[in-house]
């Protein structure tokens, strides 16, 4: 099996321009609203250092295991853990079970959202002007 590609996040290159958050919320929610982005940039030391942060599609998949309605499954091609909104009841158990805090409740839809790598064409990596986010095979 080939190693699936992942988002490679390089905090040193991030300038906190929030292009990634904009692109993400546009792709998934149809609006420019960082509050609904699945990738989040955290700023430290008053902006001197920023860290883009999102789901790593971890092997353990705590969210998927705990889900009481089997609303989360693995996309075997991409290795992503994907939420099926038609099955999600919005119970939020996955949001507390994920120890990374990268699956979150969306008050607009009443369901949870997480990174799905945009189906293999992640928009955050595409728009990032500094290559702080790239999409490739981690070394």
């Amino acid at each position, binding site marked *: 099996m080939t190693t699936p590609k992942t988002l490679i996040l390089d*905090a040193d290159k991030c300038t906190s321009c929030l292009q990634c958050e904009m692109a993400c919320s546009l792709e998934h929610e149809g609006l420019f609203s960082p509050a609904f982005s699945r990738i*989040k940039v*955290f700023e*430290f030391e008053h902006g001197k250092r920023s*860290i883009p*942060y999102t789901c790593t599609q971890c092997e353990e998949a705590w969210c998927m*295991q*705990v889900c*009481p*309605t*089997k609303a989360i499954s693995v996309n075997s091609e991409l290795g992503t853990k994907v939420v099926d909104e038609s*099955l999600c*009841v*919005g*119970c*939020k*158990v996955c*949001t*507390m*079970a*994920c*120890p*990374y*805090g*990268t*699956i*979150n*409740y*969306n*008050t607009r839809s009443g369901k949870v959202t997480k990174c799905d790598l945009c189906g293999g064409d992640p928009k955050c990596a595409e728009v990032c002007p500094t290559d702080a986010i790239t999409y490739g095979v981690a070394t």
Partner: protein
Amino acid sequence: MHHVIIGAGPAAVSAAEHIKKLDARSEVTMLAAEDVPPYSRMAIPYYLVGNIKQEGTYLRKNADHFEKLGITVKHARASAINPQAKSVALSGGDSIGYDKLLVATGATATKPPIPGIDLEGVYNCWSLADAHKIIEKATPGSDVVLMGAGFIGCIILESLAARKVNLTVIEMENRMVSRMTNRTMGTMIKDWCVDKGIKVLTSTKVDRIDAGDGQAFAVTTNTGDKIPADLVICATGVRSNTAFLDGSGINIDMGVVVDDYMQTSVDDIYAAGDVAQGKDFSTGDYYVQAIQPTAVEHGKVAAQSMVYGNVQANPGNVNMNVLDTVGLISTSFGMWMGVDGGEESELVDKDNYRYLNLQFKDDVLVGASSLGMTQHVGVMRGLIQTKAPLGEWKDKLMENPTRLSEAYLAGAQAQHQNNTA
């Protein structure tokens, strides 16, 4: 190797699937007492609201899911077990032999011993069968009394409110969800409910229920109130399903006592989920947590032990709850009530219904609770479970607890740099 699992809830299904993953050639049989495919009690509230159909509560969606995995689902109720003969007696009179046995029978909702509690129209809300009866009676405008505003009570409360019934909630304790909130947070949840038009009586007990004139009941409280009700729902407590184990020699306390491998006091018999008294991550004590995440994790540990023997110990399960009370979201993790010699950082914003409480032991997060937070709540679990030292971030969090995600990330980055250095 024949693995028999008594039960068909989340603990049972988690165990069955893991057993098959670890040993594809083993034979796995799940005994299901209820006459429906394996389902999730947790999804019942969403079925009550009408967001999903009955099928939406099923733990696995394809009708042939278990068959395809080679797991047999046998609709039968276990009535006794015989560890000497290594067999389980079924209520129809048959029996089934096992090499390894998992007790995953969950819990049952109880009713307090008060006059009128057994009247038709006084229901628990625990199974799909209960849900069907409630859906019939909880019609818009009907008078409904909910006894108990604990965790399960509050979850049902949300569904009943959505069904537009005229709801009165009666709780014995001085606040709502006392199992996961301190007085400040519990009171904020109550204020929120009252603001939404729900009558909430705390520090109040139901003394009796009388069949009144016509259809309605009269629910009498210890304060002398008489509340009319078309339907009474009882969410005052649950009990682990262990009665059928009497005489088996298995050690039972609040639930089936298990060791760190999920084995009971009898060889080759394991227990998982709401029926099991397993290790609590925070205290190290053995306790019936009765939550979905623990049921799933128990199932996984038990499966590992049943297939490979007792080698991989359970470090304990973090107690955690998330609750949506008519739109107000609350969470609680680990030692949310604090520990001896610990410190707490608290943010109270009553006007906006926001609350955050962090509990520390030295510079380690040991518990947390929140109100009105939906983003990155999982990091609370992450920090508690990894016991990550917060270092300088501890003081920053003492000053401002809302910087939790930042503190988590700063720690995770430091860890990463250490690992790659």
